[in-house]
């Protein structure tokens, strides 16, 4: 029996893709530090953190969204719109101390719009957020056109780009936020309910969890954080533009999936995502330093993503193989071909033929 249990532990470790990705990250950092010149320097760290910041920041709430079985593709456009509005208001002579809160507020509103469509009207989040992706980016162009607003106060820009005691200023806030999100997701009733509704909406509703309400507020949160990312982006480049951060949504989704979160919801860990995002950023940074071409960067990103989804299944296959040899229980149906079916949407609708 004891042998059995030990074996099970081994198997569980095999299954945890998030752990694998963390190990991968550590390994990569070590190798890069040893082999790539100028990688392990304070200045490079701050560059790394600056490139990582927007992706990781948005990936935090996005993880929660994906865990509930939904998705939000409009984050990058929200970033762009808040950046554009920031620029317009700065141009208009408003004080930055007023602008930033207003931008965050705007983000909350934009998120609420997504939430409204997804929860109240019950539309598929993929379609909705593709729509708002176009809408918000469009509005950004309406607000600022193709103009670029600059001359943001040095005090603020250097706050974002600067370093204290050799450490980039953004590092600490990012760490704190990550920890907060991790605690919320993994150690609070809310976090538990997120997993539950992602793994089984029915079961969640029967357990008295307010699915729609929770999802709505998640979208609001995502919007707010995306707007914050927009503000940071603007200050970092000291330049507000409508096209800021375009295409970032795919990078964020990539980071989340790479972190081992199931696109169908219900499975994933936050530290896995943090590791995933960091791995992507570090990889790009190191490969650039090693004069690897942009083309290679793109390919590597794609391959990593594909591996990240196939690996857990492979692990699952190995797991069940091991267990079968041990004559033990086979894993839950989750891994069987048509269950869950490959789908465009994290949330597979009930396939039963029921009215209403």
């Amino acid at each position, binding site marked *: 029996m004891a042998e059995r249990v030990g074996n099970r532990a081994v198997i569980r470790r095999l299954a945890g893709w998030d752990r694998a990705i963390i190990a991968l990250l550590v390994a990569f950092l070590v190798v890069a530090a040893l082999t790539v010149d100028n990688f392990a320097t304070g200045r490079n760290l701050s560059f790394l953190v600056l490139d990582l910041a927007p992706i990781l920041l948005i990936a935090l709430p996005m993880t929660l969204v994906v865990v509930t079985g939904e998705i939000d593709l409009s984050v990058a456009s929200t970033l762009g719109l808040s950046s554009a509005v920031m620029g317009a208001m700065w141009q208009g002579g408003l004080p930055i101390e007023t602008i930033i809160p207003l931008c965050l507020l705007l983000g909350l509103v934009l998120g609420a719009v997504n939430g409204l469509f997804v929860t109240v009207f019950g539309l598929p989040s993929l379609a909705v957020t593709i729509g708002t992706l176009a809408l918000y980016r469009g509005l950004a162009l309406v607000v600022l056109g193709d103009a670029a607003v600059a001359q943001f106060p040095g005090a603020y820009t250097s706050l974002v780009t600067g370093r204290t005691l050799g450490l980039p200023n953004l590092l600490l806030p990012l760490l704190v936020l990550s920890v907060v999100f991790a605690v919320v997701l993994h150690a609070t009733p809310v976090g538990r309910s997120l*997993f539950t509704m992602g793994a089984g909406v029915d079961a969640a509703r029967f357990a008295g969890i307010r699915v729609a309400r929770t999802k709505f507020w998640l979208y609001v949160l995502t919007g707010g954080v995306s707007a914050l990312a927009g503000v940071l982006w603007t200050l970092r480049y000291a330049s507000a533009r409508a096209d800021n951060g375009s295409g970032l949504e795919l990078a964020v989704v990539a980071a989340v999936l790479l972190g081992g979160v199931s696109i169908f919801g219900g499975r994933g860990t936050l530290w896995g995502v943090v590791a995933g995002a960091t791995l992507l950023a570090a990889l790009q940074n190191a490969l650039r330093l090693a004069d690897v071409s942009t083309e290679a960067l793109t390919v590597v990103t794609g391959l990593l993503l594909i591996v990240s989804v196939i690996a857990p299944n492979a692990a699952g296959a190995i797991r069940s193989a091991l267990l079968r040899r041990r004559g033990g229980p086979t894993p839950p149906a989750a891994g069987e071909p048509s269950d869950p079916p490959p789908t465009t949407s994290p949330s597979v609708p009930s396939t039963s033929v029921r009215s209403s």
Partner: protein
Amino acid sequence: MSAETVPRLAVRTVTKSFGAVAAVRGVSLELRAGEVHALVGENGAGKSTVVAMLAGVHRPDSGTIELDGRPLRLDTPAAALAAGIAVIYQEPTLFPDLTVAENVVMGRQPTRSFGRVDRAAMNALAADLFDRLGVAIDPDRPARGLSIADQQIVEIAKALSLDARVIVMDEPTAALSPVEVRRLFAVARTLRDGGAALLFISHRFEEITALCQRVTVLRDGALVSSDPIGELTVDEMVRRMVGRPLSALFPKREVPTGDVLLSVEGLGRRGLFSGVSFEVRAGEIVALAGLVGAGRSEVVRAVFGVDPRDSGVVRVGGRELRAGDPRAAMAAGVALVPEDRRQQGLVLEASVARNATATRWRSLARFGLLLGGTERRAAREWTARLRTKYADLDDPVARLSGGNQQKVVLAKWLSTAPRVLIVDEPTRGIDVATKAEVHRLMSDLAADGVAVLMVSSELPEVLGMADRVLVMREGRLVAEIPRDRADEESVMRAATGQEVAA
């Protein structure tokens, strides 16, 4: 003729287990041409699993299946269809977006020149089948929104359209009204006389005696007996299914009933049920009986607030409940153990601990934080109380046997210390021993002054446990029968509405 000697379809000592659950253990069956063969057994006895193996959905762990004496590999449903085995599944499996006709002939559509699908022929074919079954369903309408009964009809039409040599029916009548059942039987007999071999599964003995020539009894996945129908009385059948005299099963206790805890007035939901009113008192066990599809689950779901309601009021201990708000119901002390364990009761991929505490995270949290320890302790306490068997609290609950899964659901709800406990099909798909435990548990709760409302399709359970039996038919509450006057006949009459016809 060889049909006499060689069975059309033979199942030889097949075994199938799902994780810990040994669903089928060394079962053998022989289906002969021109014969309807009944397969009976309690919920969870393994009937549908046998069916699944004949249908190529599950592969037997061991044992063989022979067609006309030749061994047959059924790796996929396609293979089974190719072999001429048609299956009516217990749960309807339709394509909501496609028309009814397409659902009937999917993959085998009649074609015109250049292999084009011939819609006219397709609709005609379906219409013809529906006429044979004597129902009016427009072949050209989408399947979405069909009532559970019509869904079942379409499933039957699907099987007929194959004009297969072996036809397997897993509780085809569960959702049908007597009229439709009579028509189905007529069709089944013509098929039988046409030389097809039929396997028929049902929980209704009158149907079995009316239609079948042989009956095979399963208990806990194992074969009990297989005899000609004439040599077996219904009581004997039941005894073999259950393995002991019924009476021993239901540890009903007489308890003085207190004041009204749950009162429902004029509850209604468009298209599903209407004008449902009843009361449940402290210490009382009230059964909600009726045929599958009568709307019992809909009613209790509406009471608990998971489903919306169009009309009516629900009071708990005199205070009115907000409609469509399960959390309010929970706060008022209501608990609902839902009908569908795998969909509604559990998150199969989540751990035992998570599932067992799913209703109590808020109360378990300290300073808003849920640290593994408290959760595991709470889970361990309650799973122990219900004598749940599992290897590890962190195992996904899907690895547990059906019965133990049901215990986890019960633990999840009993741990909220409800004043009103609603259980929907509490013993569906769980083994005999557990069933007894569940019943004992319900009696104990009633004794402690809990008001229990039990939805059940199992008459013995209803008769054995209930102080009062409420009977529903087609979304209406048609009868209220006190314990002393409640017997199989009175309840079935009310449920099937025969006294109306008479």
